[in-house]
């Protein structure tokens, strides 16, 4: 079974530039998550999709971050414009819903973003 694919692995941009990350979840996984992990901290949920609908985006800084999951499969996360504090690893994960219960999440390798 192929895992969660993310690209790029690394990205360095200057502040005020824009950047986009891509995620392809495991086939058949309806739930897709984007997490931000700042060095030394646990992952923080940015947005959660169920198929192509948003379940939770309460912690997404909507003035600069946006995400979409067209057709309920792969997803993109965009930052425009980037700030220094956006430097972090962005993790994508997906999971199944089995009999109404969410199973464990499967994570991609992440994209390490450095804003200079």
């Amino acid at each position, binding site marked *: 079974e192929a895992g969660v694919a993310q690209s790029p692995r690394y990205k360095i941009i200057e502040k005020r530039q824009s950047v986009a990350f891509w995620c392809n979840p495991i086939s058949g996984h309806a739930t897709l998550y984007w997490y931000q992990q700042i060095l030394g901290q646990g*992952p923080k*949920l940015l947005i959660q999709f169920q198929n192509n609908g948003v379940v939770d985006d309460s912690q997404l800084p909507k003035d600069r971050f946006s995400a979409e999951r067209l057709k309920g499969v792969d997803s993109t996360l965009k930052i425009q414009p980037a700030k220094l504090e956006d430097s972090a690893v962005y993790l994508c994960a997906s999971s199944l819903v089995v009999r109404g219960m969410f199973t464990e999440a*499967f994570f991609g390798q992440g994209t390490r973003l450095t804003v200079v």
Partner: protein
Amino acid sequence: AQSVAQPEDQVNVAEGNPLTVKCTYSVSGNPYLFWYVQYPNRGLQFLLKYITGDNLVKGSYGFEAEFNKSQTSFHLKKPSALVSDSALYFCAVHRDDKIIFGKGTRLHILP
């Protein structure tokens, strides 16, 4: 509100000794508890989970965890640590369609 606490930022254990990584939770209703591990420059990997049933659950790489409802704890354990177990460990609770992570505990296994 649902929350997970990992009281130790770092745990050091000598190779061959038993290890414990602590986790406590605050969840209304029945908790679904998970442990994930993160190796350097890698994404998180699922280790084990407790949904219901036996309080002692076994997972990958020889790890196990004990669910203790009275102490609201879900500590991760391994009888004999390996140097390769050195990594960042996250406790998580799945509730209301969300996954909430603890801040993580860095485990150092000393050769």
